[in-house]
């Protein structure tokens, strides 16, 4: 379901045609991918499900677990980590909204306004993608330096008395959401750019011919036609942002007060060695994203578009 959504969900008619054209060659072409998925997705998923129901070996060492059916693991992790779960979704939603607000205008300018200047357009795209050339760990550390207590930003804000003298930015929800927004901005802007770049401007012309002001044309024509890009962009931002554990980590832009689900899962797997709890949390994260995304894709009705 979620994978289909990235492709903009092919209309039912096309799927039927594909099914009719099914041939041995298509199966052979699918085989490598299927094998890969079975080996590296389905098998680990099963292992994860089994682990999530395990219980500690009585009298065993830390990190020793045996197979069991212990659903209370789920109740326990939800009880313990509910704030982190909620925080994950709140931070990810905020980052998605901010990335959309920042990314859409960028994509619009590059995809529509810069069309007459192909060279400038290409250059703008390169600038948009440029951050990918640097490791995201390095980029996040760089932001940590910029937001540091002795850094330029905090110093300037203090000297202008916008924030009190004892204030700080690192380790706050602000810096975590900022980091998430920054990290996933290109994932938001690029799919929107792709749909806007293909937008037939004759629709815009027709809109203004039919008495719509530029803003109304945008609201009723341009934006609805770019919805497939908006949907893929928000999914590409929201899903990884929910599970992100770099920005919210104490070592980067976060603190213990900003820990998200990813950080909790990391701590349970690597530090506390509470594998069943980590597995249960991973599955809860996965299922909730799946439910949210399905509802979102269904509601946005992208099936109708194109």
């Amino acid at each position: 379901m979620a994978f289909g959504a990235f492709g903009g969900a092919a209309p039912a008619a096309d799927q039927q045609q594909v099914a009719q054209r099914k041939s041995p060659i298509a199966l052979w072409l699918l085989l490598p991918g299927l094998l890969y998925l079975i080996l590296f997705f389905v098998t680990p998923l099963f292992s994860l499900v089994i682990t999530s129901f395990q219980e500690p070996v009585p009298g065993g060492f830390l990190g020793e677990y045996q197979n069991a059916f212990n659903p209370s693991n789920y109740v326990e992790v939800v009880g313990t980590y509910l704030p982190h779960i909620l925080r994950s979704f709140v931070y990810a939603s905020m980052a998605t909204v901010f990335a959309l607000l920042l990314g859409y205008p960028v994509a619009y300018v590059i995809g529509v306004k810069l069309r007459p200047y192909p060279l400038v357009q290409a250059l703008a795209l390169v600038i948009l993608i440029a951050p990918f050339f640097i490791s995201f760990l390095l980029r996040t550390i760089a932001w940590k330096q910029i937001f540091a207590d002795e850094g330029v930003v905090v110093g300037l804000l203090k000297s202008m008395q916008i924030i009190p003298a004892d204030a700080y930015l690192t380790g706050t929800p602000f810096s975590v959401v900022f980091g998430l927004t920054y990290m996933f901005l290109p994932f938001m802007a690029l799919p929107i750019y792709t749909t806007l770049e293909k937008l037939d401007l004759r629709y815009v012309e027709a809109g203004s011919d039919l008495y719509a002001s530029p803003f109304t044309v945008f609201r009723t024509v341009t934006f609805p036609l770019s919805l497939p890009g908006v949907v893929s962009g928000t999914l590409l931002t929201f899903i990884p942002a929910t599970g992100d554990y770099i920005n919210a980590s104490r070592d980067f832009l976060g603190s213990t007060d900003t820990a998200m689900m990813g950080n909790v899962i990391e701590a349970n797997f690597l530090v506390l060695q509470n594998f069943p709890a980590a597995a249960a949390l991973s599955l809860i994260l996965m299922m909730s994203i799946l439910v949210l995304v399905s509802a979102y894709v269904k509601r946005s009705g992208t099936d109708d578009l194109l």
Partner: protein
Amino acid sequence: MIGGKDLTDTKAYQRPVNTVFQSYALFPHMSVLDNVMFGLRRRKIADAGQKAKEALDLVELGHVANRKPAQLSGGQQQRVALARALVNRPALLLLDEPLGALDLKLRRQMQLEIKDIQSEVGLTFLHVTHDQEEAMTMADTVAVMNQGKIEQMGPPEELYESPKTAFVATFLGQSNLFGGEVVSSTKDVISVAVAGKELRVPVDRAVAHRGKVTVGVRPEKVSLHQAEPATDSSRGVIGPGRVLDASFTGVSTQYLVDVPGFGEVTVFAQNTSHGEHAVEGDEVFLSWSVEHAFGLADMPPAEDRFLNDTSTGAMAVQEREKIEQELEGA
């Protein structure tokens, strides 16, 4: 200027004008009905839905109101585009080659339908087309434009029967044009010397009355004679010439006759009798009634035929030639 108001400075969305685009430009994400309602909604007009339904009924597409434009055929999309513009009752409806994408049969059908709808709603339609026949079939007034300027404007019959410029004479239908000089004129006719013959043109059908002029006559007005016809002051006669080509097209036979001094003359002979017909190689005389001749002040430029190619490649070549000529002249 529409209704006495200069609209040059108003924005496109504030003008009482609607357009039927060549590509239709129907909004693909809206239903047919929403497309038609778009303009009414923007102007906050009451019972937009009802008006839109009526407009769709007018183009006989009421039954597809809830479909998406992509589910309609080209002709149906064209009619939706028409309804979407018409429903606003604009002061002026622009039709920008709206039938260009349709096949010939559908185009003929749509021409008649648009004409019916036009007389039904009584709005002013401004129809841009490259199809001369379409212009003549549909319009009350035709303006022939060349290089961005109006060459001649008037009812189709007037433009066809008495063209005022060589461009109009050759663009709307075919014409035989002979260049010559006025030798004498009376109150009613001028006489033009062409290759040793005197051709007469009624004064009121001639643009210029002295000096170098062009005498024109439409191919279907020219009669073919096996022998030289008796001299008659009411008929222009040229010949003898040789038939270069005779092609039978059903309703008529088209002859191409080479007359020394006059060049190649086209003749359309109505296929009304079984009698003898001229064949290739025959020597024939040509005549026409003087009242069918028209006089022009200009000749079509000799190498004019492909100048109107508006593909970007051709325009680039033309621009380059122009610049090269300028450079040589300087």
